[in-house]
């Protein structure tokens, strides 16, 4: 302890290298974190907010991030100092036996307490700000989680679709979340935090309303946003993905409109009636990469062979078990167990965000969904699914069904 001054000098020399390296590493980390945050190469990023809800969370995260970096810096610098400075050396005297210091104890109790307070207060404010409806005229969407796909129902618009949620930009949205089977979690990171999709408890007190979880947000940019189930929900939890397409208000209205008009090929010609409507493909938004995909199906689709389509339609509607689970607007198919297939040809993906929606993948899917998504309830050509026996369709029939479904646009 006597040679303290000498040693301090010598050691701060050696210590500086460690400090600067530490500080350098920290800065590097922080820069990496924030530079990469905005890049579009992370389509499912939690630190790239595109709604008011996501922005509140992100602001809070950045705030807390810097507080924790500060604390980490203090602890690491002290630790590095202690390790370098108080390393055992030859000729060390037996250290002074200090048992504590009340002032220090009070200091390092109140210091962290204040930091924690600085984090807790905005956190609690954000909790209250994000858990209530944003406006009265919000768009209501009822989200139902299924093993392993998403159902989206717009009660006011009377529209039901699956795995691809269409929303208008700059309008508040209220998502009502409920599950048909096990607990799922709705999560589209760029649109905000996740919320569990709980099974609705069937039996409650006589006057009890079923309790749903809600998510409230207002998307302020158009684009296609990726999401997936975030609560382990069984064998194919990893494959329960979804897309959210945020469009300009008029495009969205258009999409709603068109859902109610059956696709030209949906039902047999005689039943078609006045269903003459111009096939309008949604305009592209700014988010380049993914938005192109909205179009992709449309652009690449080869002209359907009418005969094959009509064969497929016949099989789908009359010669198979398809309609037991699936619905297609404007036809007799009104099954409610599986995804609604209205305008299926416009979907970007097949199998809940798994595969590009093209002929080849669709044929694979119809032939053997279990090989693509273990635990799926849909039967394949020679494998049962859920309670359903194998469909026993021939290769030709599968091709026809695929052609029919892709023609629904």
């Amino acid at each position, binding site marked *: 302890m006597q040679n303290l001054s000498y040693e301090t000098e010598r050691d701060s020399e050696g210590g500086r290298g460690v400090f600067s390296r530490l500080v350098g590493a920290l800065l590097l980390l922080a820069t990496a*974190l924030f530079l990469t945050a905005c890049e579009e190469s992370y389509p499912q990023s939690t630190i790239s907010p595109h709604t008011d809800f996501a922005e509140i969370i992100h602001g809070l995260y950045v705030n807390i*991030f810097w507080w924790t970096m500060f604390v980490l810096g203090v602890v690491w610098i002290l630790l590095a100092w202690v390790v370098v400075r*108080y390393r055992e050396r030859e000729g060390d005297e037996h250290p002074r036996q200090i048992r*504590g210091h009340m002032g220090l104890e009070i200091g*390092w109790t109140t210091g962290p307490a204040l930091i*924690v307070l600085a984090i807790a207060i905005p*956190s609690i404010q954000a909790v*209250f700000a994000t858990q209530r409806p944003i406006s009265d005229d919000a768009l209501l969407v009822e989200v139902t989680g299924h093993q392993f796909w998403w159902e989206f129902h717009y009660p006011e618009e009377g529209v039901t679709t699956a795995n691809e949620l269409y929303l208008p930009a700059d309008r508040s949205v209220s998502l009502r979340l409920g599950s048909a089977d096990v*607990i799922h979690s709705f999560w589209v990171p760029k649109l905000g935090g996740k919320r569990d999709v709980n099974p609705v408890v*069937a039996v409650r007190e006589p006057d009890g309303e079923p309790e749903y979880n809600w998510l409230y947000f207002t998307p302020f940019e158009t684009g296609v946003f990726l999401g997936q189930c975030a609560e382990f929900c069984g064998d194919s939890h990893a494959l329960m993905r979804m897309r959210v397409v945020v469009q300009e208000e008029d495009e969205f209205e258009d999409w709603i409109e068109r859902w109610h008009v059956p696709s030209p090929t949906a039902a047999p010609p005689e039943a078609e009636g006045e269903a003459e409507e111009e096939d309008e493909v949604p305009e592209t938004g700014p988010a380049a990469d993914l938005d192109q995909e909205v179009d992709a199906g449309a652009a690449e689709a080869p002209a359907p062979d009418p005969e094959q389509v009509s064969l497929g339609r016949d099989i789908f509607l009359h010669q198979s078990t398809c309609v037991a689970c699936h619905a297609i607007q404007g036809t007799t198919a009104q099954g409610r167990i599986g995804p609604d297939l209205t305008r299926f040809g416009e979907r970007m993906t097949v199998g809940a965000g798994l595969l590009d929606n093209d002929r080849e993948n669709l044929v694979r899917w119809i032939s053997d969904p279990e090989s693509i998504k273990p635990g799926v309830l849909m039967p394949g050509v020679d494998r049962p699914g859920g309670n359903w026996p194998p469909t026993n369709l021939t290769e030709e029939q599968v091709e026809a069904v695929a052609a029919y479904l892709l023609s629904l646009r």
Partner: protein
Amino acid sequence: MSVQIENDPDTHAEETGIWSWITTVDHKRIALMYFATSLIFFLIAGAQAILIRIQLFRPANDFLSAEVYNEFFTMHGTSMIFLVAMPMAVAFFNFVVPLQIGARDVAFPRLNALSYWIYLLGGLYLTSSFFFGAAPDRAWTGYANLTLPQFSPGLNMDFWLIGLSIVGISSIMGGVNFITTIINMRAPGMKLMRMPLFTWMTLVTSFLLVTAVPIISVALIFLGFDRIFGAAFFDPARGGDPVFWQHLFWLFGHPEVYILILPAFGAISDIIPTFSKKPLFGYPIVVYAGILIGFIGWGVWSHHMFTVGLGPFADSFFIAATMIIAIPTGVKIFNWLGTMWGGSIRFTTAMLFSVGLLAVFTIGGLSGIMHASAPVNLQQHDTYFVVAHFHYVIVGGTMMGLWAALYYWFPKAIGRYLDETLGKWHFWTTLIGLNLTFFPMHFAGLYGMPRRIFTYPEGLGLEIWNQLSTVGAVIFGLSGLIMTWNVIQSYRKGERAPADPWGASSLEWALPSPPHHYNFPNIPTVRSREPLWDEEERREVEGVTMAPPKAEPHMPNPSYWPFLLAASITLSWALVMTGIWWVIALGMIPTATCVFMWAFEPAFPEGAEH
């Protein structure tokens, strides 16, 4: 420094041979068995982790199927918590606590043996599910209603819930045993506030064990009724509530986190002063902080449930409680720094692991603060960010602390040092491996990778983080092998260790290494917090502990009933899987018989007075 006594012509030498191990009630032997068993489970669960990492090395990889992957990540988590981290801590409770407080054994030696055998057999039962092709596959949290039979047919989750029920019995009995031991069996003068920190944290942990583990036992029994007998505790279709499971699970699960970390905190609170050659800075504060963590740990469980939708008031309460618990944890870290400050630090492997814990655990603690904020949690929950967080806490905290304890107490237990060169290899591969494995997971999580997914698509920007993690996992796996090799080699031919190899302060170092099977020939009287650091007191203590016993030490009889009872308890539980009432009823007969026989077995040799 130390008094070396040649093996005195010890007439009470312990027996050797397999049978003596099966029937032993000696806490030191039970400790060794606990450690060896948890080490084997560590290697098994570690191998599963490596396979998981290989699967995630590439997007859309098909190395493991969804089914097998789900089994591996479930068994990795379940095993690492219940069959590795907890029992490995219990191994140290067993070895160290009686020696530190000046006792000849734990309060209930046969119960102690029973705890071990139940742990071993329950663990084997759980792991045997792989051989039946029915390994648990619904995550270590076993969330209802996914675990109900309509969504999880097969025996997989029956193995899980029954296996954990069995292992839980062992934890509860262990807790009872250590509370009684620490409260009642301290040497004269060993006041509570003179106890070494490791004993203190064992006491706090034991209280958590006896209060928290029964909650999951209850939850598992509910789930068992739902699955096997068709009850509806968690079935929403029949009025049950799956969220109820989550409350029960986390009401256990969060105290469990402190069950895992407090023993490590206790160990390094003994190790850091020894190698800094200074008493623990702020001893009473560190003790109170540990107790406070134990208490507040009860009020934070719903921070695992911020996404469940409990409403803003519940969320706010659990934000506040969780933030508050960060304060005593921070206080502990500063007190350890204060202990080292002004010391003369000797970097043995044990000390390296302790310092490593300070550096690495802090990362885990701080990322915990991030998702303690409920809104931020809505993004981070169930992502790899959380996976990174709890691995920093459990590997960077619990396991680093336990490795420190291993290098520190091994010479006392075996009479030989662990090899320090291999030890340093172990430390550096651990440090590099764990950071390379778990740090990139923060980024994977921030970029939207949920946990518990057997595959991820290309194009999310997740590839590089997963590749780094996999490389890290291989290095970390290597560190485990180095450690295992070191333990085996040093056990057989490590350098001989004296009674007090480190110049430490507490009672266990006043005994020969390894200690006699009766520990203390005569019970010393303690006059301070560091009895061996005061010249005079040390002479006094060693005069008692190194002398031949004044009177024949009465040690409990060996007994084979603990093993038999453990076997019959495991059997009775396993038969519950059949769901046939008379099979289950018959299965209880051996258990009842063993309990009866146990009760009438003389605990001490005939004619011995105690």
